[in-house]
């Protein structure tokens, strides 16, 4: 996607057996929600028990992004996975605060903190 465009979203995935981190950058709105949903889906498709959604480089997130995050959180819960969200930028933190969703989603200030203290693997 052309990053000169006003609406853009990019993502990369780092995964090992224990944790998958989806790094997302750009703006999440009506124009990019399909791409955002695809990024979250990629996180859930991994076999890792812990899925970290890294929003550090997300400069804007509207209610459509919140909807996708909550649905992903619910699906992670159903499939016995742990979803952790890194809410780096202040605008993202603000929308979680205003909507009260910061209490539903498990938020971390950095990826390092989100990937620390992984739950034990259930055999």
């Amino acid at each position, binding site marked *: 996607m052309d990053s000169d*465009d*006003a*609406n853009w979203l990019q993502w990369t995935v780092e995964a090992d057996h224990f944790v998958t981190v989806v790094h997302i950058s750009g*703006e999440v*709105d*009506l*124009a990019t929600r399909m791409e955002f949903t695809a990024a979250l889906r990629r996180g859930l498709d991994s076999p890792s028990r812990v899925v970290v959604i890294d929003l550090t480089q997300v400069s*804007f997130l*509207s*209610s*459509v992004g*919140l*909807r996708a995050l909550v649905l992903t959180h619910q699906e992670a819960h159903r499939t016995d996975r742990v979803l952790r969200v890194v809410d780096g930028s*202040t*605008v993202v933190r*603000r*929308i979680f605060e*205003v*909507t009260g969703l910061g209490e539903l989603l498990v938020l971390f200030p950095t990826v390092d903190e989100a990937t620390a203290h992984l739950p034990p693997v259930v055999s």
Partner: protein
Amino acid sequence: MCEAVGSDDLPCPGTGDDALMSDDAGPLPTAPRLAEWVRTLPALAADAVASSDITKPHVYIQVRASPQQLGVIRSHLNDWIGRIGATRELAQDMVLAVDEAASNAVEHAYPDGPGTLTLFAGCDRSGQTTHVIVSDTGTWRPPPVDPGFRGRGLAMMGLLASLFELCSTPNGTTIVLGWPVAD
């Protein structure tokens, strides 16, 4: 309380272009167009525009009601916010609320085809209050009883803005958002 002033169904000029007009250079070229648009607005929105000082930085644009234009709207708004010197906290709330207002028009106003939405942002003559108005000429459908996330978008505007009014008439839907300017 929520009544349209004037019933003229004004055509939107140049609907083929995405960014139809962007003019905050001064009152002369903007004023006649603005006056024409104001006649289509409900009273609260018309009053908000009338009280705005358009010799100062303001935004008055019409864009196609499409998801790709939301970034354009946020960009215009951010430029204006920078020029009026709002705090970062206020800027965030303004951009989040206006995006929800514009997203609502993009998603729901024109189920049967293309349409336009108009954005106005300005400070009143006292310099104490900012108003942002998002209007469309489409059809408002009220959220379902369990409003879910669409309701969340509407509720967010109420939480983010000091003033939030939504007015729907057969001529379209208008959202008025307002914030006091920080000292």
